[in-house]
């Protein structure tokens, strides 16, 4: 599954995307828990960037949503467009 990071989250993690393998469905918070185990950049990012938003295949969802391997998951702070 492709994971995209944006803005402050991307800056803290130090890259704009990851690919992970998901065998069955997983909840977004489970995916994040796994990412946080990778290294302290991820831990810092997910602990310090507050009020994160989630989108699966370009649709806003909440952290309880399940994702599949073919999905594109995006994680980002609240948007500030316009």
């Amino acid at each position, binding site marked *: 599954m492709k994971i995209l990071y944006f*803005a*402050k989250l991307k800056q803290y993690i130090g890259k704009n995307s990851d690919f992970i393998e998901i065998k069955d469905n997983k909840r977004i918070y489970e995916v994040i828990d796994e990412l946080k185990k990778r290294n302290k950049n991820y831990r810092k990012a997910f602990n310090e960037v507050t009020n994160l938003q989630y989108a699966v295949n*370009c649709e806003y969802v909440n952290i309880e949503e399940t994702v599949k391997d073919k999905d594109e998951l995006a994680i*980002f702070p609240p*948007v*500030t*467009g*316009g």
Partner: protein
Amino acid sequence: MKIFFQKESFLVEEKFKKFSKTNSTAGSIISFVGKVRPTNNKKSITNIEIEIYEKMALLQMKKIIFKLKKKYKILDFLIVHRFGKVKPQENILLVIVASEHRKEGFRFIEDLVDWLKVKITFWKKENYLNDSEWIEQKESDKKILITSN
């Protein structure tokens, strides 16, 4: 009915002229231009940097426009939104809407700009002389977010 996300700066008057010509029979043309202000919280801004999730931005924008067009009868619109580095006094966002009657144009453009401020997957970072800061969503915009959900 066009949407442009672009790095390049643009002149509102040129966009306006062209849009007016193709909508010469409209009774009302309303435009909104959002510009980079020179300071924020008394800090002088060198430029702002806009990062975008383009695929989602386009998809979501098409959906909101589809909804708004059902709600308000308009004839045409143009949206130009810059990304990358934008300097103070430059335009970030232009929205123009043509309609037969002004009321529907006003409602369409205001709803659309409200949406753009709180929902489009763009993020702004302000660069100052010696440091930089990601912009936080404004309290007033959060309220719009809640009521528009």
